[in-house]
Structure formats: C-alpha cells, structure tokens
C-alpha cells in the first residue's frame, strides 16, 4: 500500500491548499453518540468565523443502522448541501466500503486502524487512527468507551485541518454545560488524538481551515427550536400534539422554553398547557377546542399526522376557528422515510379537508424567519379566524443552521375581531358570520363572555350569518362567497414573497422554504454559465399579486420543488392558468436537500 500512497503523495505535492471550502462526512452507526463529536466540530469551526452548515442523515431506528453527518465549510457563505464529500471519517464498518467508493478521487478518508482498510483506492488519501488505543487515556467507564471513542476523530481532524483546539474545548464546555467531568473526559481523548496526529500523521491532503470573521454576531440553531421559540413569543396558550418524527423536537424544545419563560412569576404556575394527545385526531381536536375557547393553540406534526387531521381541519376552516399547525415535512407517500426530508405536503396542506377547502400556509425560508413566522402565525390565525399551517421540513427542523439573532416581535399581539361585552352591547343585531367590514371576517365572541347575546353555535354544517343551522341554497352560496372573500383578503396580509429582480433577467426562478440555500448558490453558478436569473421566494399561500406580476414579467419561470410531482408548480398552474405555459417545474426528491449542482444541471438542461 505504501507505494500506492507514495504515488499519490507526488500527485499531491505542489498542489495548492484548499482553504475553508470543502465538505466533511462522518459515517457512524446510529446510537453511537457521534452527534456530540459532530456538533462539537461544527461549533468549533463556526467559532473560527467560518461559515458552516451541518446535516444529520440518520435512520429510522434507535440503534445500529447507518448515520451520516456532513459538515460543509464555505468561505463564500454557501450553506446548501454539496453532493460530493472531500473528507470522509469512516466509523461504520457496514457502510465503509460503499462510503469510500462514493468519494471523488483526491478525497481523504480517516478510519480506525483496528480495521483492515475497507476499500483500497489508489486515488484516495487514507489516514488510519488507532481509536481503541487513544480512547484508553480517558479511562472512562466501560459502558461509555464506545461513546467517548468518537472524540478520537475530533482530535485527528483538529490536527489535520488546523482547527483551533481551544474552540474545541469551548464547544465541549458549551455542550456539557460546564460540567467538568464529561468535559475533561472527552477533551482528554481529543487531545490524545490531536497529539498523536501531529506526531504520526504527515499531512498529505490539501484541505485546511483558516480563521475568518464571517460568523460574527450569528448563532447556531435548529429550525424546530427556532419555531418553538417563536411560538413561545407568540403567546402560545395550549399546545396539543402526538409524537412524530421530525416534528417531535419542536414540541420538546417548546416545553423547555415554556417552563423557563412562561412560568408565572407570582404563583409559579404555568401560563400554558402542553398536552400529549392519544393521536393526531385528538391533538387537532384539542387545539381547535382551545382556539375556539380563545387560547392561542397549536400543534406540530408531519405527513401521517396531517392525513389524520384532515377532517378536523375542514371543520376549523368552515366553522372559522383560529389555530396554528406546524407541518415539519418528511418523505412520503405513507410512512415513507420518516428521517428524510421533503416538501411533499404542499398540496396536502393547502387543500386539507374535503369539499371546497383551502388553507393559509406560511413557508419560512430561514431560521430567523421560522422564529418570526412562529409568533406571526398566531396573529394571522386570530385575524383571519382560520387555521394557519407553518410548513417547514426535516432539513430545516432537525438540522443546525447559522442564523442572524432573532428580532423581538415589532408589533403588539393582534387578537383579531373578538368582541367584549361592551362592544357586543353596541351591536344590537350582531351575527357571528356577518361580513360587516367587507373583508369576509365576522366578529366572534368567546365562550364565557358575560352577555345574554354572546352565545353562538359553532358547527361544520350549513349555517346563516347568525350561525343558525340552515339548508337554504342562498345561505350556503353566500357563506362560501364570503369565505372566498376572506381568502382573497388573506392574500394581502400574509408575508409577501421576497423578490430579487435586480438584473431584470428573462428567466425567473421561484422557490420556497429550505430550497433557498440551493437557489442562492445555484444562481451564482448559473451566472458563471452565462445564465442570469431573477428570483422570487414564496413565503406564504394563498399567492399574492406580486407573484403573478413576477411570472408575467419573465419569459420562463422555473419553479423549484423538493418533491416528486412539482407540487408548487402545480399550484401556480392552477392559480395562473393564463400564465401557466411559461411556468416550468423543476422537481426532485430523494430524501435529501437540493444541491446547487442539481439546480444548475436542471436549468441548463432546459435552457439548451
């Protein structure tokens, strides 16, 4: 093998270093606790001022199946996934040889020297790490050795890539919340690996990290935590849920934030309730009961839960009950791939229910926007007296992202059209569903309001403006017309799309949610291919005039969907039939987030 490696060395010599611009992939078996090591690496690089993004590609089981963690560093600030890995840390025997086969030539592979080399490629730079041996220094309790051993590759990478070892120690301290025992135990192994590498591993690869200042003032957070925090600052009152990957951690985080931030100072009691329901039908039922009774209510779920919520969602639409539903999308159809990402529930959410039902959806495109929409969703729900779906996905929800600090809500809470006893007194012939203001929204009273005329009867059956049961043709038609008026009003108050048409290109791109990083990077690359593009990022449904105008202003508009059938493109076709001919779908879904390379190939492919 040495000879091979020597060839490679010569091949490498003279090759100039690649700094702050590559992707690391760490392959481990699930449940091995590598997440600690990986997030410590991520945080350290982040604290070196280098733009970084990490993705955890994990299986739908608890122990043993393969997990891959990818860390991309990008001096240019790109945070989309890269299709290729430059450095592979092969810690999973089951996948090692395939992991190595997939590497581009010139890539680096670290592996435990306890193994025989899993796949011998002459165009790969191998570093063998004596993991067992180096782990012993920690003399950790036997049941923890497997866990602690992950710190070996942290140490070796620190040496090879020139990571600031103090940042590693800081990150450990941060991770273990200052608890000295675990910090020291882990750091001792990091140091062992670090020093062993300095002494025994001649650097034979071009990849290096150098301090920058690009992450100053930024923070690292996963989308589910950001959404949870947004909901807390949105004044969530009742959250009912049923566990389902990848939405579970949103509620988990929320429960912790709430305990911290929403325990009543005087009484020490809770100003909120979080109820684990028996299933998603129960969860949404509780949420709608709470929203009707006047609390800010929410749930979080994913595909299968959305399906179960269909009937209640239709009731909320028609009885006009405000509530917020987070859909952290995963890969469907059916149970699909619970631990893979997708944007496959767009049509599902928009049309959830039977009959002629349509819903308002918010689609944040960054971590800070997830926080913002987290509180805004409640204002919109109560203003519009309907369900608000906040659509994110596993990629946003469960991965750690760089983010600007969150802005405190710049507006007071909007509780919408809720009547006090005094106001009601002023409305002698008030009717719950009377469109007084022409925006399609009636005034509601909350149960418990002390006024003899306060009561009204909510129902999913036909009703007149006074909320009385009616099978009359005219009542039905008028009510549906009002609901559509309300929906059109919603177009004007939901978050507007973000448009970049500075260049005034002939080609427009439309994307949304977690596809933004791919489009941002892809546009730069397309420019290098001589293809200028304008870009509109959708942030909500129903669609607004801005979107129509953007499409009308471009010859060809490519709609980027991370799903199989191009659902957002379909939605645009429905909404703008007169423009549909120029609306082209670019859809792909394989369980991972989209890459700039894919976008470039897709667009250039169509443009030729």
């Amino acid at each position, binding site marked *: 093998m040495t000879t091979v490696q020597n060839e490679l060395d010569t091949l490498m010599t003279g090759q100039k270093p690649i700094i702050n611009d590559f992707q690391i992939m760490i392959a481990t078996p699930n449940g091995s606790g590598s997440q600690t090591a990986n997030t410590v690496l991520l945080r350290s690089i982040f604290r070196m001022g280098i733009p970084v993004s990490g993705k955890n590609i994990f299986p739908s089981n608890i122990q043993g199946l393969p997990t891959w963690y990818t860390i991309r560093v990008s001096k240019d600030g790109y945070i989309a996934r890269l299709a290729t890995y430059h450095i592979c840390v092969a810690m999973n025997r089951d996948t090692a040889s395939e992991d190595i086969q997939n590497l581009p030539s010139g890539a680096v592979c670290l592996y435990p020297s306890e193994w025989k080399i899993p796949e011998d490629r002459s165009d790969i730079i191998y570093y063998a790490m004596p993991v067992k041996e180096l782990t012993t220094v920690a003399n950790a309790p036997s049941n923890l050795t497997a866990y602690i051993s992950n710190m070996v590759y942290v140490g070796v990478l620190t040496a090879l890539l020139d990571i600031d070892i103090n940042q590693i120690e800081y990150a450990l301290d941060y991770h273990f919340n200052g608890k000295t025992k675990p910090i020291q135990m882990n750091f001792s192994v990091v140091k062992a690996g670090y020093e062993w590498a300095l002494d025994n591993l001649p650097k034979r690869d071009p990849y290096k990290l150098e301090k920058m200042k690009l992450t100053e003032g930024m923070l690292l957070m996963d989308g589910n935590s950001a959404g949870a925090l947004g909901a807390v600052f949105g004044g969530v009152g009742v959250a*009912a849920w049923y566990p389902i990957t990848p939405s579970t951690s949103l509620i988990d985080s929320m429960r912790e934030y709430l305990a911290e931030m929403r325990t009543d100072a005087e009484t020490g009691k809770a*100003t909120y309730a979080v109820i684990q329901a028996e299933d998603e039908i129960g969860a*949404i*039922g509780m949420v709608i009961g709470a*929203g009707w009774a006047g609390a800010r209510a929410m749930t979080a779920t994913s595909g299968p839960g959305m399906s179960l919520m269909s009937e209640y969602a239709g009731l909320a639409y028609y009885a006009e009950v405000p509530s917020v539903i987070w859909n952290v999308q995963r890969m469907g159809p059916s149970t699909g791939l619970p631990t893979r990402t997708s944007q496959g529930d767009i049509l599902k959410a928009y049309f959830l229910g039977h009959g002629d039902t349509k819903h308002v959806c918010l689609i944040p495109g960054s971590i800070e926007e997830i926080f913002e929409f987290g509180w805004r969703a409640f204002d919109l729900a109560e203003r519009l007296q309907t369900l608000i779906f906040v659509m994110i996905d596993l990629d946003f929800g469960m991965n750690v992202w760089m983010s600007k600090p969150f802005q405190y*809500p710049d507006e007071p809470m909007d509780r919408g059209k809720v009547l006090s006893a005094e106001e009601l007194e002023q409305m002698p012939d008030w009717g719950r569903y009377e469109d007084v203001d022409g925006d399609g929204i009636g005034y509601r009273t909350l149960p418990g309001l002390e006024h003899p005329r306060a*009561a009204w009867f909510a129902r999913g059956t036909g009703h007149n403006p006074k909320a*009385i049961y009616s099978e009359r043709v005219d009542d039905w038609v008028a009510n549906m017309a009002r609901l559509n008026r309300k929906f059109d009003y919603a177009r004007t108050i939901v978050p507007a799309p973000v448009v970049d048409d500075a260049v005034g290109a002939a080609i427009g791109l439309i994307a949304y949610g977690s596809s933004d990083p791919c489009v941002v990077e892809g546009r730069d690359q397309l420019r290098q291919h001589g293809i200028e593009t304008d870009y509109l990022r959708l942030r909500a449904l129903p669609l607004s005039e801005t979107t129509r105008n953007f499409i009308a202003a471009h010859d060809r508009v490519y709609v980027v969907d991370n799903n199989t059938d191009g659902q957002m493109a379909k939605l645009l076709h429905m909404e703008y039939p007169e423009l549909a001919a120029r609306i082209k779908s670019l859809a792909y879904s394989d369980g991972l987030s989209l890459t700039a390379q894919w976008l470039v190939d897709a667009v250039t492919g169509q443009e030729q």
Partner: protein
Amino acid sequence: MVRTNVNLIGLERNDYKGGNSTLCQGCGHNSISNQIIAVCFELSINPQQVIKLSGIGCSSKSPAYFLNRSHGFNSLHGRMPALATGATTANRDLIAVGVSGDGDTGSIGLGQFKHMVRRNVPIVYIVENNGVYGLTKGQFSATADMGQELKYAGVNELPPIDICLEALAADASFVARSFAGDSKQVRELLKAAFSHHGVAILDIISPCVTFNNHEDSTKSYTYGKVNEEPLQDITFVPEFEEIQIEEHEPGTVQTVQMHDGSHLMLKKLDPIKHDPTDKLAAFKLIEEARLQQQFITGLIYVDENRKTVAEVSRLVDTPLAQLPPEKLRPSREVLDKMMEQLTCCR
C-alpha cells in the same frame, strides 16, 4: 315586587331554553334536553359560563335545543372529547356539557372517549344511548344488545359495549346510568354530575322511537328495496308517545316495554347497599347485572380525588384564554439575553 319564578342568579326557566327540537316526536333525547334545562335552572348555573359540545347524530343535535345563552359546538362524529379537552384547558372556568350518542361514543368515538375519561376532563358527558344510529336510519351501534333484531339491520350478533364499564376501566371519576323516561332519576344524577369535580359519565338509555323496529317504520323500507326504489324518506315516521316510567324503589327491578314491544329491565341501585366509592364493587355490579340481562341505574361509581387536566398541568387560576399579552409574551429582555448568550464571537 318579588318575582317568584326566578332562580338564585335572577334568571327564569325560559332563560335556559333552547331552539325548537327537530328530533322525532317522542324521542328520548328530547326529554333529556328538558331535564338539562330544568337542572341548570334549579342549580342556578350561569348559562354564559356553560359550553355545550357534541359530536354528530340525532343526540348530538340536541345541544341546539337547550341553553340558548351558552356557546355551543356541534363538532365531528365521535371526536367531541378532544374538543372538550382543549376548550376546558383553554378556559378552566367553563362548565362543559357534552352530549353524544352510542354510535358517537361507543363506535367511532370509543378511543377518544376513553382517553378523555383517563385525563379526567371536567365535563358532564351524557351518552344518549339507543343502541342504533338514528340519524343514518337505524343501523346497529356498538351498544346494541346481542340478539337484538332490527328489520333494517337484521339480528345483532356482537356483544354490546357497556359505556359504564368502559368508563370504569378508564378510571372515570364519576359513572352513572339512567333511563330517559325516568325524569326524576335523570335530574338527580344530572345534579350530582354538575357538582362533580372531573369527568362525569352519564349513560342514559334513550329509546329511538323511529328505528326500533315497529312494523310501520321499516316495512315500507324493505318493500321499497326489493323493487329498486331509493331508500331515503320512504320511511314514514308515525308520531309516538315518549316512554315514561313512574318512580320505583331503589333496589327494585322495573320492566319497561319499548316501542318495538321488546322489554328492558332496569335495576335501580340501592345507595344503602352499594358504596359508590368501591370500584371493585362497581365492576361486580355491572358484570352481575349483565349476566341477568339487567341494566343497573343510579350512581355506580364516584371518586372526588382525581386531578383534572388543569390541575395536572398546574395551570394558573386565570383562564389561559383570558391572560393579558404581557403574561403570554415574554419580555424583550428575555429574548435579548438569550440571543446574547447564543451569538458568536462577541
């Protein structure tokens, strides 16, 4: 001048009325609505603090026929328990009355019912139990007796779900059974239920006069079918008297003739003989009665010590729905401090 016909909070019986019933003449459900009106008036319950919840069915229509001054929600078939859980959590001061049917609770809604009971949601939950699906015209529900025969649906060969037994198994804190025709007992049990702290399950046998198998109501149906006529509305619904029974002594068994000629045996619990805080005894009672094909009526089990949802959640006293913004939205400082801690390289 003294008004005699007002209750302690100055309301008249009329203030507890509802809209006109669109249920059949003589339907047991109607008399239950009337007892609810009577009891709420007598107990001087503030109707503006009451919420009326129901699923879907003839029974579930009835909240529209009592307490017009109370907010109501006629929700989805079998899914009202979740609604009740959310509403009473959002506003712990509300007095919840749920009306459901045997299909609504025993068939489609069994799961939600059990979990609501388990959570001890504070609600007076009434199952208007007629053993059939009234609104969809007479199929068997899960509480239909084994061997019962309906012209529409033939003979039922499945054992019945016993609402009281199900409630007990799910740790209900209040379980009672009665018969719609026994106005006095229904009122007594309703009063006990309204004063109970937690979930109060009332299984009230409430005959369906239309689909309990008397010739006229269903003969034409069958004839119709043979000749490929549509089914709906061929059903002619003659007007029936509601079945009422006069008082009978605790401990005694009374046999009631139903519209279809079948008989029902009601055994009224003797409070002296039965200790309603003894769960084991409650299980025995129900199982033994079942073996004798009797229905126990009266207060079967009660436990005032179980925590409600609001208590388990350690909620503030003010209803969550009425908390001011400053209690709901943490201060700017809280966010800034957190951002400070999290942001890099400061």
